């Protein structure tokens, strides 16, 4: 990619490419400012006469299925990350594509994981042209070293749905890993030896892709009940020995932190929600699967018991900690987008109050409302936050890709967005003058909680007033930053390259920031 890239400055002053992978882009205009007026994209019309009356859509293997789907050079192939780092299906599909001999595919995963690093070889061989989806570890380095032929596009879970509905990304073939399925293609995630809980990430692809392949290692007799993926959206069913490594399907992220400093942060978050009056009967909240977020739920739970407060619903990613809330009657429902541990998987399979939802109903910009904005408080992490409350979750301070966006951007729409983070990591301050990569604009971020104090966004006078008179360590964000710089010294800002290698999309599809090639 040697051609010059045109750059424009968006509403938050970031230089972003006006063209990405041959498609014109709209620079970020401000939250809620961009509203496209057109009709949503739609899959091609199909006719059921093309499908067997017996309902049996099984074919011998993935290679056969991909051939029958008409996979050819330059197409878009999608996979999903509900099996997390244990997924085997994405590489199985891409390897099968390589054997067929197609080139220049765009791989469109809902997220990629370190175990999929051999995708690099497929890029080197020309099978994959580029990736649009989260990249970290070796894949992230490959991208930020400028080795990928196309530009990386990082989208939130909701943004991925939006891109499909806007027609920005047209999925030619979707390959869905299914822990349980029948021959018709009905599929479910909460049962089977590779059970993972929700299949929510695959829902958009199952309805919008031209061709859909379900791959399962637990074929049951029709009907597969419940079905999260509807068989009448599915073209082919492939049975394989195993779709994933169960040990890695549920990740290690569900360990509650034992670091006293992080526990302090978690407790401060819970105390803040209580002092601000957010923790009250019928409230709702969402917490991620990070160590601090999980510990926060533990503290909040104690306070809810003390105050006799019950939540109406909590939003997953579900974990053991949330499941316990449900079982102890401290929440009426878990509305779950993904499932992080086995307790979550079991609960979803057995408890009707533990509901599987998709990014469409909770996160999608083109939905008629989102669950995410109904949530009273959300507790998230970040790698950096700046004095204007802008935050970064995708890159290290040195510009290397670190995380995908996940549901992070979508969660910012909650009533109160709290970032819980240590004020420095390994001597590197977390509060900076300007974030390396903007992933969330400061106008959407309300509170930053560190072990050295709580900073409330001056835009939220209501929150500042609500906690006035509490004994919480509420301080201006500049104050905490100055204290940390006194301890650590002011760091030198690493020099980033001037060649874009990926873009960060906002939830509406506009370009929020650029990830620059690392020298």
């Amino acid at each position, binding site marked *: 990619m040697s051609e010059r890239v045109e750059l424009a400055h968006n509403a938050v002053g970031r230089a972003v490419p006006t063209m990405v992978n041959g498609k014109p882009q709209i620079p970020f205009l401000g939250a809620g400012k961009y509203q496209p007026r057109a009709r949503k994209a739609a899959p091609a019309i199909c006719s059921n006469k093309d499908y067997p009356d017996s309902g049996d859509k099984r074919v011998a293997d993935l290679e056969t299925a991909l051939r029958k789907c008409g996979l050819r050079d330059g197409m878009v192939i999608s996979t999903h990350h509900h099996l997390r780092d244990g997924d085997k299906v994405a590489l199985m599909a891409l390897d099968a594509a390589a054997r067929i001999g197609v080139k220049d595919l765009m791989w469109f995963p809902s997220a990629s994981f370190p175990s999929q690093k051999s995708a690099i070889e497929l890029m080197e061989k020309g099978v994959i042209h580029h990736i649009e989806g989260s990249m970290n570890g070796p894949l992230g380095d490959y991208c930020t070293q400028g080795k990928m032929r196309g530009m990386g596009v990082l989208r939130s879970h909701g943004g991925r749905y939006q891109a499909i509905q806007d027609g920005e990304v047209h999925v030619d073939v979707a390959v869905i890993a299914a822990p349980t399925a029948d021959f018709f293609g009905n599929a479910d995630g909460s049962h089977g030896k590779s059970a993972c809980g929700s299949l929510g990430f695959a829902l958009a692809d199952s309805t919008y892709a031209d061709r859909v392949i379900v791959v399962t290692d637990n074929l049951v007799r029709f009907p597969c009940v419940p079905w999260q993926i509807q068989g009448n959206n599915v073209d082919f069913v492939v049975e394989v020995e195993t779709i994933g490594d169960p040990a890695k399907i549920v990740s290690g992220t569900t360990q509650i932190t034992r670091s*006293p*400093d992080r*526990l*302090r942060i978690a407790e401060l978050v819970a105390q803040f929600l209580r002092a601000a009056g957010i923790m009250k009967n019928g409230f709702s909240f969402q917490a991620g699967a990070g160590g601090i977020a999980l510990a926060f739920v533990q503290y909040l739970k104690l306070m809810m018991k003390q105050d006799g407060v019950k939540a109406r619903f909590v939003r997953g990613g579900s974990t053991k900690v949330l499941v316990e809330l449900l079982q102890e009657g401290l929440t009426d429902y878990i509305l779950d987008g993904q499932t992080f541990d086995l307790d979550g998987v079991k609960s979803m399979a057995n408890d009707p109050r533990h509901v599987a939802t998709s990014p469409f109903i909770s996160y999608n910009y083109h939905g008629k409302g989102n669950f995410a904005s109904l949530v009273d408080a959300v507790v998230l992490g970040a790698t950096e936050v700046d004095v204007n409350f802008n935050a970064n979750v995708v890159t290290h*301070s*040195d510009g290397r890709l670190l995380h995908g966006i996940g549901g992070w951007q979508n969660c910012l729409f909650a009533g109160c967005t709290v970032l819980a983070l240590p004020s420095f*990591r*390994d*001597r*590197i301050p977390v509060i900076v003058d300007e974030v390396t990569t903007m992933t969330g604009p400061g106008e959407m971020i309300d509170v930053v909680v560190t*072990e*050295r104090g709580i900073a409330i966004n001056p835009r939220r006078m209501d929150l500042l007033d609500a906690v006035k008179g509490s004994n919480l360590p509420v301080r201006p964000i500049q104050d905490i930053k100055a204290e940390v710089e006194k*301890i*650590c*010294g002011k*760091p*030198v800002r*690493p020099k980033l390259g001037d060649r874009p290698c990926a873009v960060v999309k906002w939830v509406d599809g506009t370009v929020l920031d650029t990830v620059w090639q690392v020298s």
Partner: protein
Amino acid sequence: MSSAVETASPRFAEAGHWGKEVRSDVHVGFEARDSGGVEISLESRVAPYYGTAILEQTREVLGELGVKHARVAIHDEGALPFIIAARIEAAARRAGIALGKRSLPQQHPLRAPSQKDRLRRSRLYLPGSEPKYYINASLHGPDAVILDLEDSVHRGEKDAARILVRNTLRTVDFGSCERMVRINQLPLGLEDLAEVVGESPDLILIPKVEEPEQVREVDRMIGEIKARNGIIRSIWIMPILESALGIENAFAVATASENVAALTIGLEDYTSDLGVVKTAEGHESQYARSRVVNAARAAGVQAIDSVFSDVADMDGLRRWGEASRAAGFEGMGCIHPGQIRVIHEAFQPTAVEIEKARKVVTAFEEAQNKGLSVVSLGSKMIDPPVVQRALKLVERAKAMGVIS
């Protein structure tokens, strides 16, 4: 392998730690040379942000130590500047260079000196060779932090630890925590004093005290260093009694110097001296603990309890703390920040006690206003010691933030 010929050749030493599991520390390899100037190599996980600063700091520290010729290899794991300085100094000294010289980092302004009778419910132990715990220790709200040079520091690391503790006292803001140092058993402890007293710790703990003379020896040395450095603020002493003989001499030890502010007990060593098993209930040390409380009270100093070593057992800790307070102790040690809150709650007077004490105080104040020498509450006359106790309890409850 040493020989007379080799003494002129490069001498190598090292200090600090590095590796994948190490956080907030640094390893310094130091090769003293006779010529060739200073040569520095740096590997750091924070190199893009602080590489230049670390190199600059290294040159500065070497300059202060008077090092002209050396090869210095630094492996940094995100250590803060005061840690880097301490490790370089330790490595240089170990290489036989810069003896008698110090590189003192910029000082954080000292807080007000501590009062002899201040609140000492909890003291958080910070191992003298684990710098990663220092910077956030005070955020967990203990009444005191105790930088430990004794049991938590390996014998071969004592020299490096005392330099690190010195720099920590000098630069880390411990907020409203009292800054304590546990030195080693004498005579090694005297070398610790030589390094740390100049940084005005608030209190020195002396381990394994058996005779009052040991306290006096420490007190004398503290006095000398204070005089040499022009330090006028108090540096209190807390002797630790850890043997049968020490317990027998409790009163003499507590009264050995007017700088003794508290007396405490070390149960691990005490029980092993007795040849009994240390239990969670602690019946075997009941006599010794009572003796410490009694001696401390008789000497007019605080009695402080030992530590509770099972960090996972919060219920056991609470029971221990409550019994400890009931027995007359005013605080105990913590080996994990998670223990602090439980200890504070255990050492907090109950609502009933506070209410009763407040009534007595009110009656006392009324009597004072009326010019009466006898304090009475209802139909009961209140003895002066009861009044004194009530006054102290109310004052303590205020200091603990239980009442305003």
